[in-house]
């Protein structure tokens, strides 16, 4: 390790511009003759479009699906047998299927005027019956979201390892139904896109607030019938993504098409109302879980049914089945369980399409599994931590092949839980006389940097393969790194420079990391799945290796020795009798070509390196979380008094940044646990449309989260790193609800749904009181 390489908590290179308000986000870009977009969106969850009345004098500034000749709706693909799948149309043609679906697009010189125009467009809608929940959609004779399917079941999967033998041995059965509500992801900067045609380059240039520029280019090429070389996608500074910006949005297709058609720049900026309604697209899982265990709570088999409320269309590229596939593939979590049977159902409803939100389905899966483990512990009368320790995969079993087929590469799961217990127990908060205190735990393991093999099995149009990075040594020996992932808070301008510094010994202050622009960087599927530091970090190291070799060859020629005799040390090329700096070698290649033989001149100092983990195997990060809460049984309110996370993401490239990723993830997870929900009424109307009713936790709701780390190097990755971007968000719903249930143990109440709003907490208490009264009645 160098003091600027892997392992250094280097201050971030990107901070300076943000602290001076000099970032450049999508809304900050202006172009001459630019038009702003406002959409006319459906006020109904299901309706036939009978007609659309445009204001007479402004008709040429209003566009509908009928104007979009030649635009092909995106077609998501899947390898799951029988998967019924329909991508979002850019604009609705003859039918709308959720509140917020786009009916018309209005253009004006600014957003306010575009909204004025949108108000004057009158869609004539004929109301159709709505299915706004899993139960409504799966009921006998339910109205159909897509009539030609003959059902609302979009996808069904089954897996059965054979559980009869384990079930026969089990003495305890515990069954629970667990619900996670629908959420909005709420990056603080809304989604947005600005497109214009650049005649000089012969390119449609699309600025998009996206995590995955090349994927958006792939999609736009399909929709618009253009070649890849004819589209450039640029992600400027992006104000948070969390998965919301890792998918194609219909609005991106519309502004791209309009820019081509009008030959003028066209821009759409999502506002918060649009985000909380049309963008309310995350989580919403229901689990029916049965654990078959022995008297000590050792879980022998897990039998589960998972249903997702997947909305009206399939997002691209991951499809609407992504949550179900992910959750069923990781449901047994960090536990050694011998038998597993799972059925998943992905159900279409008249709601926005289900999309992958930070950690995708894992917060739901962890919530279901970990609350079930606590229920098992209660059933056998043992401490939930002890029951966990008995079920967790032991360190000695690593690498461990789980019953799901996944291989957990490394780590000590029980040790992380013991540390979390020691940390949280050390705090005793004074919660006041009227509140009940409880402690809850959750442990997860997380498949990070998802592999080519995993993605290719499910057949979606997103194929990670080998990640690429370019390293361009400049004539003065400074270095430009170009990568296809996009950094939107993860600090990759710093960490990738640290990796270059680790390999080359170059000062990170002499390294620039360019990202998020298809015109600049090698191809990449983008930033998602906690993959960037593993995949792109590895690719940067590979490119730096190549560059190091070339520099050593140049130095060797100048020093009259062989490249093998030259070592790279702290930016110096050190030979047996002499040394030169990287800068000197760069200057020789660029300005003194006459000093070098042809074979060293032929391929310059601009290289591309490719990387994926050894054997295409993914590293599994993991963590144990513990929450201590105070519950007011009269009001149903919950305060998180203390929160502890002990995570293991292998080698930490920048420990400060790792802390930031975990802290931010935990805060979002606490939002999922206690506050965040977009409820819909039975007509599919979203009921949380402002931050007044959609509660995002502020500093007042988030305690000073405490962290500890373990560092078990992954055996398969460069530097031993594992992904860490999503993990923090996985465990909080489980840990917080387990803490609430621990606090409520004297009342007999048990909460089985998140967010644990005061209404749900009180309902659980009332239900327990009713059960107790019923028992007394029966005894009489």
């Amino acid at each position, binding site marked *: 390790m160098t003091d600027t390489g892997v392992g250094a908590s280097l201050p971030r290179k990107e901070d300076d511009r943000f602290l*001076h308000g000099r970032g450049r986000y999508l809304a900050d870009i202006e172009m001459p003759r630019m038009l702003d977009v406002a959409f006319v969106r459906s006020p109904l969850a299901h309706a036939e479009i009978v007609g659309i009345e445009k204001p007479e004098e402004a008709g040429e500034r209003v566009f509908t699906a009928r104007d979009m000749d030649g635009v092909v709706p995106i077609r998501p693909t899947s390898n799951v047998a029988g998967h019924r799948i329909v991508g979002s149309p850019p604009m609705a043609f003859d039918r709308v299927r959720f509140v917020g679906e786009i009916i018309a697009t209005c253009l004006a010189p600014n957003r306010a005027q575009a909204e004025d125009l949108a108000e004057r467009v009158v869609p004539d809608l004929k109301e159709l019956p709505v299915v706004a929940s899993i139960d409504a959609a799966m009921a006998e004779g339910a109205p159909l979201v897509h009539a030609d399917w003959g059902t609302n079941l979009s996808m069904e999967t089954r897996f059965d390892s054979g559980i009869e033998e384990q079930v026969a041995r089990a003495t305890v059965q515990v069954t629970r139904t667990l619900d996670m509500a629908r959420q909005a992801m709420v990056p603080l900067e809304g989604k947005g896109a600005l497109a214009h045609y650049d005649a000089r380059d012969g390119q449609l240039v699309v600025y998009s607030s996206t995590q995955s520029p090349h994927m958006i280019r792939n999609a736009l090429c399909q929709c618009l019938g253009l070649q890849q070389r004819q589209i450039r996608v640029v992600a400027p500074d992006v104000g948070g993504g969390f998965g919301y910006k890792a998918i194609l949005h219909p609005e991106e297709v519309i502004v791209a098409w309009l820019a081509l058609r009008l030959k003028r720049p066209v821009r759409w900026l999502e506002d918060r109302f649009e985000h909380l309604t049309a963008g309310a697209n995350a989580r919403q899982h229901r689990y029916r879980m049965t654990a078959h265990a022995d008297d000590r709570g050792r879980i022998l088999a897990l039998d589960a049914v998972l249903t997702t409320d997947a909305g009206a269309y399939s997002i691209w590229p991951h499809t609407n089945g992504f949550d179900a596939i992910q959750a069923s593939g990781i449901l047994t979590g960090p536990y050694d369980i011998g038998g597993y049977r799972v059925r998943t159902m992905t159900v279409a409803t008249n709601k926005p399409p289900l999309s992958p939100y930070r950690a995708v389905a894992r917060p739901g899966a962890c919530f279901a599994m970990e609350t079930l483990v606590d229920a098992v512990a209660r059933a056998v009368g043992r401490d939930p931590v002890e029951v966990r320790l008995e079920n967790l995969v032991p360190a000695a079993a690593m690498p461990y092949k789980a019953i799901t087929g996944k291989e957990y590469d490394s780590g000590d799961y029980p040790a992380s839980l013991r540390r979390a217990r020691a940390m949280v127990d050390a705090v005793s908060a004074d919660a006041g006389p009227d509140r009940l205190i409880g402690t809850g735990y959750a442990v997860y393991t997380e498949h990070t940097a998802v592999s080519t093999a995993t993605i290719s099995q499910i057949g979606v149009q997103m194929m990670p393969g080998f990640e690429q990075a370019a390293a361009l040594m400049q004539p003065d020996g400074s270095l430009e790194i170009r990568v296809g992932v996009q950094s939107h808070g993860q600090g990759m301008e710093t960490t990738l420079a640290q990796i270059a510094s680790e390999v080359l010994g170059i000062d990170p202050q002499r390294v620039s990391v360019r990202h998020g622009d298809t015109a600049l960087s090698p191809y990449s599927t983008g930033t998602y799945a906690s993959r960037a530091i593993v995949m792109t970090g590895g690719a940067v190291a590979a490119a730096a290796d190549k560059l190091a070799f070339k520099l050593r060859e140049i130095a060797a020629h100048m020093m009259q020795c062989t490249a093998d005799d030259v070592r790279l040390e702290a930016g110096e090329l050190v030979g047996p009798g002499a040394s030169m700096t990287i800068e000197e070698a760069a200057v020789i290649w660029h300005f003194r070509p006459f000093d070098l033989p042809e074979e060293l001149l032929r391929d310059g100092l601009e290289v591309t390196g490719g990387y994926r983990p050894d054997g295409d195997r993914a590293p599994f990060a993991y963590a144990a979380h513990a929450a201590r809460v105070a519950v007011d049984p009269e009001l149903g309110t919950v305060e998180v008094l203390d929160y502890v996370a002990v995570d293991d993401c292998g080698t930490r490239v920048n420990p400060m940044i790792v802390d930031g990723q975990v802290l931010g993830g935990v805060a979002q997870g606490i939002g999922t646990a206690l506050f965040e929900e977009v409820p819909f009424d039975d007509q599919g109307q979203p009921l949380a449309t402002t931050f007044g009713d959609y509660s995002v936790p502020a*500093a007042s709701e*988030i305690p000073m989260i405490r962290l500890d780390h373990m560092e078990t190097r992954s055996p398969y990755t460069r530097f031993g790193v594992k992904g860490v971007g999503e993990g923090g968000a996985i465990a909080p719903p489980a840990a917080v609800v387990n803490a609430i249930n621990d606090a409520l143990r004297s009342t007999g109440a048990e909460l089985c749904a998140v967010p644990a709003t005061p209404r749900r907490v009180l309902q659980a208490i009332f239900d327990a009181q009713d059960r107790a009264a019923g028992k007394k009645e029966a005894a009489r």
Partner: protein
Amino acid sequence: MTTLSLTVNGEPVRAEIDPRLSLADFLRENLALKGTHLGCEHGACGACTVVVDDMPMRSCITLAASCEGVRVTTVEGFDDDPVVTRLRQAFRDEHALQCGYCTPGMLATARDIVLRHDRPDTEQIRAELAGCICRCTGYRGIVRAIARVIETKSQATAAKAGTT
């Protein structure tokens, strides 16, 4: 249209504006001061907070027309402000920002907290920050950065008191 005169970041500004224009849109669109960010446009997230006559104010729900004669300071105008200078360093050291979108509003709010408090505990700082949403950091770094700047301010005050 309405005529508006005010001071923005120390410069006198005069403009003809639409009466419905918000202060945020005026700053961003008319003056090209893009450092003021819009996160909700209904006064709930705090990203657009600027300083108006020494008070933090949500520019998204402040009408520009109501700002006649006031002094507005945006993130672009804090370079000579000693408190914000210290906050910037502390935000960097405590990793109090990730995507940077909430940061200008956080700085304007944090400056106000630093100016009004001498010995707040963590709970107080958290409560004072309740009107600002950060979706990335989990707030710990922001709270610590503010605490650190208040601490140095208190030390400076104490040192000054000691010498007189």
